[in-house]
């Protein structure tokens, strides 16, 4: 880790470890947005990692952002930290000033007409809590205030707000940006994959810790070989996801917008891992992990939601597979090693 990364890691992990308590997450699930925590995260610059220093950000890379994204997943922070981090990057890329306050992504169908934005997005992360939304309409990045927006509440299975946001001619700041047509889905997949890698790391360490505590038949269940073998599998899955998301971020830094290959691979890999890992984590925890009282599900329910967002693994696999087959059998290895 370089200096910025150490600072970011200390800052985000310190803040979230202390403040994201079980009570806070439960309250968030009941509808109480942790505004104070958001303010602190924002004040610490956690949502502006990808914004240039000249524009008030950290001027960081995707490799730096990965630290914040993974921490957000690991600590199950009930905030749109990841979404805001990406939204602010879109804004910065377009040269639009990044506003203060909760900002989220509007992943939907929008048209810009005479500086006014119309359209709707059906599953907006923390839409009801956001002051601003960022959409991309035909290569143009658009910042809108959500003050007058029509918002219909919805949730995902992790009870995170996923709201329908409808805009009818909302006043907008819009600028063309050098982003690919699929920027929202592509980088959306990257931020979710990183959050998922963080959550998978949590499942692994939490399950190991539990296996060392819980005693049955006179010894910690972690002493049973059957449990050890399962935890070994869980930990290798988490390790694989840590690597592929780091790789995707590194390639996003290196290749500009040409890291589709790695981002797709990351989303597919974490999706596969999340099925295996959630199953093992729950098995090891027994009935207590199946209760609302125990916090394990904060991570597992997020994984079950996030793996379908911004393209489920199977969608990305379909794309990656089509390309691979079309390029031909002989092209696979050169492609893999060229990256």
């Amino acid at each position: 880790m370089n200096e910025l990364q150490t600072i970011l890691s200390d800052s985000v992990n310190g803040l979230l470890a202390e403040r994201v308590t079980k009570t806070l997450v439960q309250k968030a699930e009941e509808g109480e947005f942790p505004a104070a925590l958001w303010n602190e995260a924002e004040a610490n610059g956690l949502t502006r990692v990808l914004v240039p220093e000249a524009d008030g950000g950290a001027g960081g890379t995707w490799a730096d952002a990965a630290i914040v994204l993974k921490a957000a997943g690991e600590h199950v922070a009930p905030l749109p930290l990841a979404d805001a981090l990406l939204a602010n990057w879109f804004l910065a890329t377009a040269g639009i000033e990044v506003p203060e306050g909760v900002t989220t992504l509007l992943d939907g169908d929008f048209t810009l007409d005479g500086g006014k934005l119309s359209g709707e997005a059906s599953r907006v992360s923390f839409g009801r809590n956001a002051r601003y939304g960022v959409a991309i309409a035909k290569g143009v990045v658009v910042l809108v205030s959500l003050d007058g927006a029509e918002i219909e509440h919805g949730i995902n299975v992790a009870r995170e707000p996923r709201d329908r946001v409808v805009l009818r001619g909302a006043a907008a700041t819009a600028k063309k940006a050098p982003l690919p047509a699929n920027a929202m889905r592509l980088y959306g997949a990257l931020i979710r994959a990183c959050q998922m890698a963080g959550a998978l790391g949590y499942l692994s360490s939490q399950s190991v810790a539990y296996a060392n505590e819980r005693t049955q038949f006179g010894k910690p269940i972690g002493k049973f070989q059957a449990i050890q073998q399962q935890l070994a599998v869980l930990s290798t899955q988490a390790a694989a996801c840590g690597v592929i998301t780091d790789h995707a971020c590194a390639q996003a830094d290196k290749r500009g917008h040409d890291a589709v290959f790695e981002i797709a691979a990351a989303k597919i890999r974490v999706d596969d891992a999340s099925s295996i890992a959630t199953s093992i984590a729950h098995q090891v925890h027994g009935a207590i992990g199946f209760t609302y009282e125990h916090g394990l599900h904060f991570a597992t329910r997020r994984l079950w939601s996030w793996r379908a967002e911004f393209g489920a693994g199977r969608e990305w696999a379909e794309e990656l597979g089509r390309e691979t087959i079309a390029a031909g059998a002989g092209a696979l290895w050169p492609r893999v090693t060229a990256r």
Partner: protein
Amino acid sequence: MQPFRFDLCELPGETEGLREEIRAFLAEELPRIPKATRAQTWSGSDAAFSRKMGAKGWIGMTWPKQYGGHERSFFDRYVMLEEMLAAGAPVGAHWIGDRQSGPLLLRFGTEEQRRKILPRVAKGECYFCIGMSEPDSGSDLAATRTRADKVDGGYKVNGTKLWTSGAHTAHYMIGLFRTNLDPQNKHAGLTQFLVDLKNTDGITIRPIKDLAGNAHFNEVVFQDAFVPDGMMVGTEGGGWGQVTAELAFERSGPERYLSSFLLMVEMIRELEKRGGAEGACEIGRLVAHLVTLRQMSLSVAGMLEKGENPALEASVVKDLGAIFEQDMPVRAHELLGIEPMVGEGSDYEQVLGYLTQTVPSFSLRGGTREILRGIIARGLGLR
């Protein structure tokens, strides 16, 4: 906190020239070899091919020049390995010497052993096999029974080694023998020896056919075989520690996830013929896993280059890699439903025929799945 560390490792740009050179070499050499043979990759033995690789300087790449090595980086060696494996080059003859026994001798061998043997290994002329397993000592390696009893000028060896890959073609075995019979001290009584398989009386090598009918591993019986003092490797009683270090090398390479790569390529070729989107999702998933494993494997190579000990990380990659390799014929069957064939049929059918029968060994050889997961569990602090 995870106990493993997988830092990203990017191959330095200067390895690219080597990669091109190797690809050009393989484009010349491989077309004459049938795909089903190539599917054997590092289990396929071809002495002429090994000598050509030796002449190119691609064996013992990282070893000191004074022992016939080429003092190149671990990254160069990594590129060489992955190119050979991905193309299905028959690298089996020299594989164990290059990967494992050479480095062992560099670390623990005597000056004489190194000078006499390593240059020939690097030329692709001298091959090794590993004598660890026995009839009653598989996963429980410390249960080794084969005895080396001290006699004048050396040791007298009695016992049986089993599953010894390549013993029938190898010049030397690195044998793990019991030099101390104290049952209280199973680990401390083990010692490694270099055994000259071509010039020692009292050694009988009997090939064992595997389920596919190939004779690739052997039973090696020692009856009063004399091994001179100068052939001990490392210290008497130090065998256990040395073997553990050796296994880190044995488990760390790209061969632990690329053994079924040829089938993946042939699957894509079949789907290519069919056109359309058939199988896209399955292939996409395999690509994602392939890319992930390569990054993990590279990360281990990066640790080796830095002189760190990636034993735990290597176990993680080998465990995940074996799942990937073993899954390949299953995926192929689910996707295409074509019968595997032996000796006749298309490239796809024959590669499938070979690998369908071979993949069960991938989670046995080099440490079973359960043993690896036990090592990982220890790393997690559970044991």
